């Protein structure tokens, strides 16, 4: 009963936001937060459901961002098409990288994805004729304006871009929800809880893991594309390992293996430093502590914890708590 109401309230708040908080800067932050929510929602599929830590999400975001930017800049592809194609390009990259990598488990997989991210980063930095190197790529166009009757909606305007990203986020959540509530989602949870068991039960685990990995990556790529056309400028820096860690933090903080947790986590990682107005360095130290403390004391993350505190039966597909295993 309570969930549809809550959902409606959140949706209404999101729609009203740019008209209530009109300061450009806060709309800017909200756009960034939603971009990160898309990344975190994707990361959650591989990390929260399948139980595999991928430290390549930042890199995949970069692939999406650069492919969309370069398609529209150099190949003259319409921006709408470029943004729509970017997740598929990223998915292809993830498929190629993931197919051999998912033969290994646990730490090996994490280290391998870390290496993947570093390779992507090094290529972005060094493939200067294409990417522009560390100095980045400038002048990335916003999506072409849409005309509805006489009304022209320009995405150079921040408010309009806000609604674009909001719609993208809604689409993302539809996809993720569909995936985790399907048979695939149940198999992924089985893999997380005991892969050997699942394997023994005749499940071709690698197919499901690969699927989860590719979905995660392509959502990161989607977010990257949205980011590129919003900023109009990209450089390799936001696609480094640090930002993959940020995605992992968002998932862990909010509640891994829940639908809402990663969104809350991502919003917090964007909003906290602004609210606290603290120096970057303290922020990162606090992030570090947050990771350690949450893993030790709230292994299920903030959202399930608060839900428990509220004593409500939120029927979220949620991770088994660590201590019960």
């Amino acid at each position: 009963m309570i969930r549809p109401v809550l959902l409606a309230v959140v949706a209404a708040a999101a729609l009203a936001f740019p008209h209530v908080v009109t300061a450009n800067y806060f709309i800017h932050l909200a756009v960034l937060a939603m971009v990160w929510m898309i990344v975190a929602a994707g990361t959650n599929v591989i990390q929260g459901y399948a139980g595999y830590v991928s430290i390549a999400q930042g890199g995949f975001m970069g692939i999406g961002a650069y492919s969309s930017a370069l398609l529209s800049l150099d190949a003259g592809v319409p921006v709408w098409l470029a943004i729509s194609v970017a997740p598929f390009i990223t998915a292809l990259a993830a498929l190629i990288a993931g197919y051999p990598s998912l033969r290994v488990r646990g730490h090996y997989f994490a280290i391998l994805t870390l290496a993947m991210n570093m390779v992507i980063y090094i290529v972005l930095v060094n493939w200067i004729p294409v990417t522009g190197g560390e100095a980045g790529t400038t002048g990335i166009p916003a999506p072409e304006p849409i005309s509805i009757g006489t009304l022209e909606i320009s995405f150079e305007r921040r408010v309009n871009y806000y609604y674009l990203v909001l719609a993208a986020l809604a689409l993302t959540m539809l996809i993720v929800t569909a995936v985790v509530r399907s048979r695939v989602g149940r198999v992924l949870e089985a893999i997380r809880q005991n892969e050997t068991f699942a394997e023994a039960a005749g499940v071709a685990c690698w197919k499901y893991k690969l699927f989860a990995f590719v979905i995660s990556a392509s959502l990161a790529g989607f977010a990257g594309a949205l980011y590129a056309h919003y900023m109009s400028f990209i450089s390799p820096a936001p696609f480094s390992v640090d930002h993959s860690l940020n995605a992992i933090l968002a998932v862990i903080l909010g509640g891994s293996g829940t639908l809402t947790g990663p969104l809350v986590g991502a919003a917090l990682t964007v909003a906290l430093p602004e609210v606290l107005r603290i120096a970057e360095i303290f922020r990162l130290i606090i992030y570090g502590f947050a990771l350690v403390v949450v893993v030790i004391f709230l292994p299920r993350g903030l959202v399930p914890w608060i839900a428990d505190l509220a004593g409500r039966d939120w029927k979220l597909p949620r991770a088994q708590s660590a201590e019960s295993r």
Partner: protein
Amino acid sequence: MLVDLLQQLFNGLVIGSIYTLVALGLTIIFGILGIAHFAHGSVAMFGGYLTYFLILALGIGVFPAMALAMAGGALLGVVLERVAYYPVRNAPPINSFIIALGLTLIIEKSNLLLFGVDQIIVPTGFNRIFTIGGLALPELRIYILLTAAALVVALTILIQKSWMGMAVRAVAQNRAAAILMGINVHAVSMFVFALSSALGVAAGVLVGALFAIAPGVSGGLVVKGFAVLILGGLGSIPGAIVGGLVLGVSETFASAFVSSAYKDVIAFLLMIGVLLVKPEGIMRRSVAR
């Protein structure tokens, strides 16, 4: 031309000996506890900074300062094990992994806070350069090789000959049996963290003497360490030694003959290749041998 090859080989070995030290610390932790201790590079950097400030503050030489810093590093290692990893020892591995990421952030940024953002260079005073044929052998690089070699030998003796070393190997090979022998696994964990952090500090000092310690250096170092680990086999001490030198030399040659821009990529390709073809690494997997 031969001189240039030898020069590159020598340079590669010097870098490789540092990679070896980093990888040794990572490998014994992984062998015993199954933890990918990502914060290791930041601990190494902490050691480098600490050594630098000890040299300035106490007016002592680089080796005594390094010894003190290694003791400090050992202590830090014990604290990390107790406070952060111990509470999640029975949880799924993903938890310890995320703890490791959190610790990396904490230590890395605390270094910034404590020691500032400027790059620092550990002063050694080893400025002489020996020349044999056309081969230039800077005194500093020779000392780095020797220091790394001495630490590797000391570690090998410790692990092979002492009771504690035996206990470490026993826990790595058969944890339950080790407990039945009366080995305190928690004490071994702490010992391993102390030992590996001290080694990491030594590596940090060498990096700081040869190049510089600065924000961002640790990330590269720890990733190279893991590349070595995977090359040599997770948990293998001889693997770390051989893998470190192989990586150092191949990187130098790649940089000279293929592309200095993509030398790191080459290292990763090597690592990914090994993982896929021979996941146990080029040496056998074990802390034992």
